[in-house]
């Protein structure tokens, strides 16, 4: 039995992006959860919450890098989730396609803003 078979008779066809996106959503979720914990620890470990300590944290290169990775994960994760919502509730192909494109533009715009924030200084 080939690997792309479910049972002896059913052949699974398609682009397999369903599985890929499902897995990506989980992987990106773990990245964001770990980032949340790191951010929380850094926040609690600081002697006080001030602009100095806060921006000092984000000034370090390793923190910029993991913040960037967390944001990219967020955008991919949000794309999969939003696509699921549109596919579940919007039956009209034209409206769904419009909403999906709007979602991508929204997320790409947010990604640009995030990059600008992370590397401003």
């Amino acid at each position, binding site marked *: 039995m080939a690997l792309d078979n479910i049972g002896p008779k059913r052949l699974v066809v398609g682009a397999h992006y369903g599985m890929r996106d499902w897995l990506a959503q989980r992987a990106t*979720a773990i990245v964001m959860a770990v980032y949340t914990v790191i951010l929380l620890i850094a926040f609690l470990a600081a002697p006080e919450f*001030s*602009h100095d300590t806060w921006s000092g944290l984000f000034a370090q290169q390793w923190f910029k890098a993991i913040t960037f990775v967390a944001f990219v994960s967020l955008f991919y994760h949000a794309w999969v*989730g939003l696509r699921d919502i549109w596919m579940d509730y919007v039956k009209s192909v034209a409206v769904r396609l419009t909403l999906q494109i709007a979602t991508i533009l929204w*997320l790409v*715009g947010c990604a640009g*803003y995030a990059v600008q924030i992370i590397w401003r200084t």
Partner: protein
Amino acid sequence: MTDDVKKSRPEFRNIHVFENLPNYRLPLAGFVSILHRISGFLLFLLLPFILCLLDKSLRSADTFDSIRELVSPWYVKLVILALSWAYLHHFCAGVRHLFMDVHVGLDKDSARRTSAAVFIVSLPLAALVGLKLFGVF
């Protein structure tokens, strides 16, 4: 007798939003699930606001201080509270999801218990954020 009781229970197929949803009794895990979706959508919609706050918090000491003013109106506090709840719920329900993906807690009883746990963790934490926001402590 038992047959009559069974027959009188409503059957839902292809539920309709306005006709069925108001009297459709969702299991606890169902509430966690739909709220996971709603909180995710809310976080998506408010992404520019979250990024704007991060921007202000990092740009300079002045903009850092200006956040206090920005969040002083009650409706902005409500938005922050909604965001905090959405994040907490989405986080807790997400962790539950990840465990279920590796087949932990899939049976009916533990699914109910873990969905209760999601609310037990996320709601009091969100309430704490709310109390802090509105200056109770």
